């Protein structure tokens, strides 16, 4: 577990450092994820080192949103004033994105005749 934890934290630390150094618009952890993906490619054994811990964290991913979510208590005034507009924007755009993404995939797959997994 310690090597796995070290791998995740070191990747994140490297990502944060690189984000500050380069001024890239990516959050440090996203750069860390890309770095770790490259490391997996170079040393496939690392993926098995990380697997138990990474699966454990990702299996309970939604718990991690709770502390930030509770912060809505500080935005009740904004939610009362703009809640409907925000809800409409996120609902409509999510439906549009699902439809657009799925139709694009089907169209391109059909054009290229890649086998469909039905």
């Amino acid at each position, binding site marked *: 577990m310690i090597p796995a934890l070290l791998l*995740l934290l070191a990747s994140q630390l490297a990502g944060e450092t690189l984000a500050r150094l380069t001024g890239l*618009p990516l*959050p440090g952890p996203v750069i860390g994820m890309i770095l770790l993906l490259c490391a997996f490619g170079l040393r496939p054994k690392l993926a098995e080192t990380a697997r138990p811990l990474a699966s454990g964290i990702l299996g309970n991913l939604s718990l991690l949103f709770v502390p930030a979510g509770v912060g809505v208590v500080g935005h009740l005034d904004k939610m009362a004033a703009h809640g409907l507009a925000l809800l409409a924007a996120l609902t409509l755009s999510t439906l549009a994105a699902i439809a657009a993404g799925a139709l694009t995939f089907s169209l391109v797959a059909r054009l290229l005749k890649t086998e469909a997994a039905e």
Partner: protein
Amino acid sequence: MKDVAEIWSYLAQSPLLWLTATLAAYALGDACFRASGRKPWANPVLIAVALLGLLLQATGTPYAAYFEGAQFVHFLLGPATVALALPLRDNLGHVRKAALPVLAALLVGSGVAVGSALGIATAFGLEGELLASLAPKSATAPVAIGVAESLGGSPTLTAVLVLLTGVVGAICATPLLNALGVRDWRARGLALGVAAHGIGTARAFQVNPTAGAFAGLGMGLNAVLTAFLAPLALRFFQ
């Protein structure tokens, strides 16, 4: 025996109380979710957030005091983002076989998710912090929170918007895609992962394993793409 108020004032100052409360509220939310037969509307996070919000209001606890304890859970968002490298690696074989459809759907889905959200919100007269908080709503929470923060949005508002996006996507995807006549599980999964991140991915895994794998892939790729797209789109709308 000491006064209850005295014990409370001690506990309310220590991180232990609110860390425990966060886990307890989530465990309760998860129990409700299982009891409902894993219906997407009984989202454990929404339930936990509602319970804790009511508890904070009832006890007059400021959010900062709550966060003293909850920060230990919040910190794990960073390592969790890094850990997404693992499912991405596991699905690299799928990507190679369907690279072009995946990339096309990713670009279109992610672009529509960010662009239409900002367009509709602007039409409703929203601006500034609210737009910056809304822009990354389809990315997985740790990434969306990081992106919103760097754009001048509110991380806590973004967290709630991300959750609601996931729940909306998970509830609506099946009827919507059936109505559109999309039968390719790869297309259905990928689109849902791109538009509705982890909650959508969890839903896709319930429906079909291929859809689940592609949803996980879509979520991971969109995390990276949103970090690039959201700042560009926001500049266009401001």
